[in-house]
Structures are given as structure tokens and as C-alpha cells.
């Protein structure tokens, strides 16, 4: 029931906004639907806490510890982003960067995007998962190109082509998965693509086929997740799209892609009885962290900067899942949570800053603290959080990851530490002068909607100090599920 509501609300919202989105109340409707979705997610959560895992709709959908918190996260960030985009987009409209028509497109596509992600998270069917991922791409392409600037069109094109092709690889991977599965589960029943069933029989699945499948799936979903060297669409798309979209892309979409990869990894590792997938994940992770750190060093556009930071963090997380084991998996899951919260918060703050400065080039943004303390502190604290300083949760997860890696993967430590150090320097040397110093930016014309920023930061802070028992319980369960060598 809750599940149906959860999926129906954003879908309905998409259709409805497709019709009324242009009206003045479009933004309010958007916010309303997002909040309602979040409400549904909460109801779902309550039920899960009460009753535990369940499957629904002829096993096509399921909720287990691994996706329940991601569902909540998605619904929550979707909700806060909608709240943020309400005034933000209005200002964009006033600045004449948008027309009412495009605003309608924006609102309905936004809801559709949320829907596809929730679908991807809750579906039990690997095929549907693929469909949802592709749909997520399609629903955001036109959002990336919302401003119709040459740069945004270019970014959109790259996004479309690279992710499209990548996803195509994932389809082939799915086909191979199905191929291997139907030999065990039989093709007549539609169970052959249901993850729960696959997970039960993963021991009997044909190893060679699955390893091939994993390659395709990893490359496919990895592209969407922004693993180096498949990440090239990511910074462009993040930088050129409207800020709320950058926030959800970076905060949610990457998580969903990662979720898909990990689901596949569980199956493949189960059938291979070898650590090959883990090693691939670790390799990609380290490569992403290292490359991202170096790219960070030379960024001048603030949204590109944080886009690369997202790549870096995806790298860290996949390294964690690659390491496997209760602690590292726990850390990875925690990191997924805190990263998406923090990164979206940062993008909110960045959005206001860039809007005030009328530029995304960092050299043109100076002394935010003196024009709007809230924006300034929001950006500063968010940055410190994402750089892994306490009391924020990113610190906790990085603490867990590093301390575990020292003993299990000592070879990786130098790369990891060097990358973290470079990333720290690269980001902080840019952010500090933007927040501090003499103001170069005119005062904000409107009241910034910073409730989302601080809401996120407070949650992240809370997770750094205290993790609620049931959340910890989910993490542990999921960590156990993911297993690893």
C-alpha cells in the first residue's frame, strides 16, 4: 500500500505538473507532491520497522534493509530540493533565464525523475531496474539543457550519448544475467530476473557468464555512477544544469547507480566465489579517487568543482564496498547517506552564491560571509563536512574506511591518502576565499531558502555523533547482505 503510494505520487505529480506546471502554483504543486512522497516514504519506513522486509506486486517490488534507507534518502532529498527550487527557480524566472513553459517541463520532469529513481530502488526485477535507470537518464537530459545555452546543450548531448551507450552495455549485462538465470530458474516463470530469487540461487549461476555479465553491468551502471574513466559526462551535466538538478543528480542518481552496481556485485560474487568483482570495484574506486583529486586541483567553476568531488566520493564508496566485510560495507552505506545529504546541501548553498554573483566562476565569488552569513556558513560548513571533518558524518565513514583499509588493503593507502590530501587542498583553497574576505558580490535580492541546507547539515552532524539504532540495524543487515571477501 505505502509502496504503491510512494510510486504513484511522483508519477501522478509528473502527469499533473505536465499539465499545470506552467501556472504560478506549479512550484507549490511540485513541493506538495515531493512532501507527500516523503510522507509515503515515512509511512513505508514505519511499516518496515514494524514488520521488516517484504515483497509486493507478485514479487516485482521488494523492500530490504539495503534499499529502505535509500528510499527514505531519495524521498527526503527530493522533498528538500523541491523546497529549495521553489524560490530558486522563481528567481531564475525573474532573471529571464527561463520561460513558464520550460518551468512546466522542469517540474514535471523533476517528479518523473524522482519516480524513476524510486522505481529503480524498489523494483525486484533487474530488467525493470535497467528500464528505470534509462528512464532516469531520459528524464534528466532535458533538465540539463533547460537553459538552452550552447554549453548546456553540449553537456546534455554528452550526458545523453555517454549514459545511453553505457546503459546499453548494462542491458547486455542484464541479458547475460537472465541467460544464466533461466538455466537455473527456468524461462517460463518470470522469476528469472527477480533479484530475490537470483540471490537464493546465486551459488548455482554459471560463473563465466556472470563474470562477463558483471563487466557489462559495471561499465554500464558505472558510467552512470561516474566512475573514472567513464565519468566524463558528469562534471559537464552538473555544471550546466540548474542547481536543483545538480543537487539531485549528484546526491541521488549516483547513489542509485551505485545501488544497482552493488546489487549485481552481490549476485556475481556469490556465483564466482572469487574476489574478482571486489577487486574491480576497488580498482575503479581508487582510479576515480585519484583522478578526481587531480582534476579538482584545476577547477575554476564551482559546480564543476563539487561535481568532481562527487566522483571522488563515489570512488571512496566503491572502494569501501570493494573491500567488503562488515565494517567497510557499513562505512560505505553510511557514506552513501551522508554524501548525498552533504553534497545536495552544498549545491543549495552554491546555487544561491552563484545566483547572487551571477557567475559560477569561483574567482568572481568573494566574501559571501559579509553579504549573507547563512549562505556563507552553509557553504563553509558543507565544504568542511564533505572534506571529512568532524562533527559531520562523512568523517565517521572515512574514519571507518581508512582504519579498516590499513590492515586489509595496505597497498591502497598511499593512493587514498594522497588523493584525500590533494582533494582537501584543492577544494578548501577555493572555498575559503569565496566565504571569507572582502565581498565582491552584491547583496542577495531575495531571502535565500536555506532551511534545506541546514536541515541536511544538521542531520549529517547528527549522524557523525549518533546513529539511530534502527538505521544502524539496516546498515548492519545490508552490510551482511553485501558481504564480500
Amino acid at each position: 500500500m505505502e509502496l504503491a503510494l510512494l510510486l504513484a505520487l511522483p508519477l501522478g505529480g509528473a502527469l499533473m505538473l505536465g499539465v499545470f506546471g506552467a501556472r504560478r502554483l506549479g512550484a507549490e504543486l511540485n513541493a506538495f507532491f515531493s512532501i507527500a512522497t516523503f510522507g509515503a516514504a515515512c509511512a513505508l519506513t514505519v511499516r518496515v520497522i514494524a514488520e521488516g522486509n517484504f515483497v509486493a506486486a507478485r514479487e516485482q517490488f521488494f523492500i530490504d534493509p539495503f534499499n529502505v534507507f535509500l528510499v527514505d534518502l531519495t524521498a527526503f532529498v527530493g522533498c528538500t530540493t523541491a523546497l529549495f527550487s521553489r524560490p530558486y527557480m522563481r528567481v531564475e524566472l525573474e532573471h529571464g533565464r527561463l520561460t513558464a513553459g520550460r518551468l512546466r517541463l522542469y517540474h514535471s520532469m523533476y517528479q518523473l525523475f524522482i519516480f524513476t529513481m524510486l522505481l529503480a530502488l524498489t523494483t525486484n526485477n533487474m530488467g525493470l531496474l535497467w528500464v528505470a535507470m534509462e528512464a532516469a537518464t531520459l528524464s534528466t537530459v532535458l533538465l540539463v539543457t533547460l537553459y538552452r545555452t550552447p554549453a548546456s546543450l553540449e553537456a546534455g548531448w554528452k550526458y545523453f550519448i555517454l549514459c545511453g551507450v553505457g546503459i546499453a552495455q548494462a542491458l547486455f549485462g542484464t541479458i547475460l544475467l537472465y541467460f544464466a538465470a533461466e538455466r537455473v530458474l527456468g524461462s517460463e516463470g518470470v522469476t528469472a530476473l527477480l533479484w530475490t530469487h537470483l540471490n537464493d540461487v546465486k551459488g548455482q549461476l554459471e560463473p563465466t557468464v556472470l563474470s562477463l555479465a558483471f563487466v557489462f553491468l559495471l561499465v554500464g551502471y558505472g558510467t552512470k555512477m561516474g566512475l573514472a574513466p567513464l565519468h566524463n559526462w558528469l562534471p559537464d551535466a552538473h555544471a550546466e544544469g540548474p542547481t536543483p538538478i545538480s543537487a539531485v543528480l549528484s546526491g541521488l542518481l549516483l547513489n542509485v547507480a551505485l545501488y544497482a552496481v552493488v546489487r549485481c556485485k552481490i549476485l556475481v560474487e556469490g556465483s564466482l566465489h572469487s574476489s574478482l568483482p571486489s577487486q574491480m570495484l576497488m580498482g575503479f574506486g581508487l582510479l576515480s579517487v585519484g583522478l578526481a583529486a587531480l582534476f579538482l586541483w584545476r577547477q575554476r567553476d564551482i559546480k564543476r568543482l563539487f561535481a568532481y568531488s562527487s566522483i571522488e566520493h563515489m570512488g571512496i564508496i566503491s572502494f569501501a564496498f570493494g573491500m567488503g566485510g562488515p565494517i567497510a560495507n557499513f562505512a560505505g552505506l553510511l557514506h552513501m547517506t551522508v554524501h548525498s545529504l552533504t553534497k545536495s546541501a552544498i549545491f543549495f548553498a552554491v546555487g544561491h552564491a552563484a545566483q547572487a554573483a551571477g557567475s559560477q566562476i569561483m574567482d568572481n565569488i568573494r566574501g559571501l560571509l559579509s553579504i549573507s552569513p547563512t549562505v556563507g556558513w552553509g557553504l563553509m560548513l558543507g565544504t568542511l563536512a564533505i572534506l571529512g571533518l568532524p562533527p559531520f558524518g562523512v568523517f565517521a565513514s572515512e574514519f571507518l574506511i581508512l582504519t579498516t583499509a590499513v590492515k586489509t588493503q595496505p597497498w591502497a593507502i598511499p593512493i587514498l591518502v594522497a588523493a584525500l590530501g590533494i582533494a582537501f587542498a584543492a577544494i578548501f583553497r577555493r572555498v575559503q576565499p569565496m566565504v571569507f574576505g572582502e565581498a565582491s558580490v552584491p547583496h542577495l535580492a531575495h531571502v535565500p531558502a536555506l532551511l534545506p541546507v541546514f536541515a541536511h547539515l544538521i542531520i549529517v552532524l547528527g549522524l557523525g555523533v549518533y546513529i539511530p539504532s534502527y538505521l544502524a540495524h539496516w546498515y548492519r543487515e545490508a552490510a551482511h547482505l553485501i558481504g564480500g571477501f
Partner: protein
Amino acid sequence: MAPLSWDLQLLNVCAALLLLLAFAMLSQRRIVTLVDLLALQGAVLCVATALVAWRTGKSHLYLSALLTLGLKVLFLPWLLRRLIRRLDVYWDTEPMANIGGTMLLGLLIVIFAFGLAQPISALANTSTKSTIGIAVAVTLLAFLTMITRKKAMSQIVGFLSMENGLFFAAMSATYGMPMVVELGVALDVLVAMLVLGVFFFQIRERFESLDLHHFESLKEEK
């Protein structure tokens, strides 16, 4: 060994045709012709699907054959031609340097693909298992096509032919995916094309041509 039954022979012919078409696309310069080739590929795919459906008597394969016919033979080519006319890129050609080299590369890829498909078809219990390798090859060749193209339109064509290859792979390996997935995929392809249509016009507003060299401004400046 016993001679293959005629329908299987026909199926293999279709597979061979697909591969041939893939190569044709790889070497084709004119965009309009590319679209024609795509339509042709769709048609062959449709026939192959129908054959398999007839052979195995799986009803949902007929459906997907119809889907292929409607989508990949009729609608998409029509849409693309219409776009071409509207965007008047009718006479556009790809400035492609040494086709020979590309073909050679394609050849190597085909070999790789067959090697890749070997373990799979060894396990397959479908009567069409021998064609898996070709499906993989078509997919990879389409990928290569996309890499070698400089025009947005022809890249899309490459993208679609990759979709064809995947479809063929699904069919020859497992007699197609479950229906719900098939539909989903078809829907996605459809939506993708629609989005693309919109997209092309947006591009058109900004740039005078659909040439990809406009799309090289977002990069790490030295």
C-alpha cells in the same frame, strides 16, 4: 552433420545480413543512407524475430516482432528522415578518414566478439545459439560506429543499431527477455527518440549544423 532445417538457415542468413549491415553502417558516409541501412537492419531483425517465434511458437516473440516492425522499421526511420528534412542535413556526409583502417578494426572486433560469445553459446540451449556471437559483434560494431562519427545524427543511428544488436542478442540467447522488460525497453527507446527530436531542435536553435565539433567547448582548458 545433418543439414540445418531451412528456417535455421534463413535465420543464419539474417544474422549474416545484420553483420553485413553493421559493416555497411561503419563505412557509410551519407547520413540519409545510414538511416536507410538502419531501417533495413530493423527489418531483418523483425524477420529473424518472426522466424524464431514461428519456430519456437512463443507468442510473445510475435509481439516483439511486431514491436520491432512498428518501432524500428517504420516509426524511427520515419522520424529520423523527417528530422533530416526539417533540419536540412539531407546532404550531410561524414568526413571520415581511412575507412579501410576502421574496417580492419571492425574485423578484429568481430573476432573478439566471437571469442567472447564462445563460452555463452557453449552453454546456450537455444537453437539460435550460433548467432549470439554475431549479435555481440553487431553491438560492438555499432559502438565503433558511434566512436568514429562526427555528426550527431549518425551517432544516433549508431546508438539505435546498438539497440538492435542487443535485441538480437537477447533473442538469440534467451528467445527474448520477459515481456515486461521488452516493453520497458521499447518504451525507453521510443522516449529516447522523442527526447532526441526535441533535443535536435534545441541544438538547431543554437548552432547552424549538427556537427559535433561545436560540442568541444566543455573541457579542461590547458
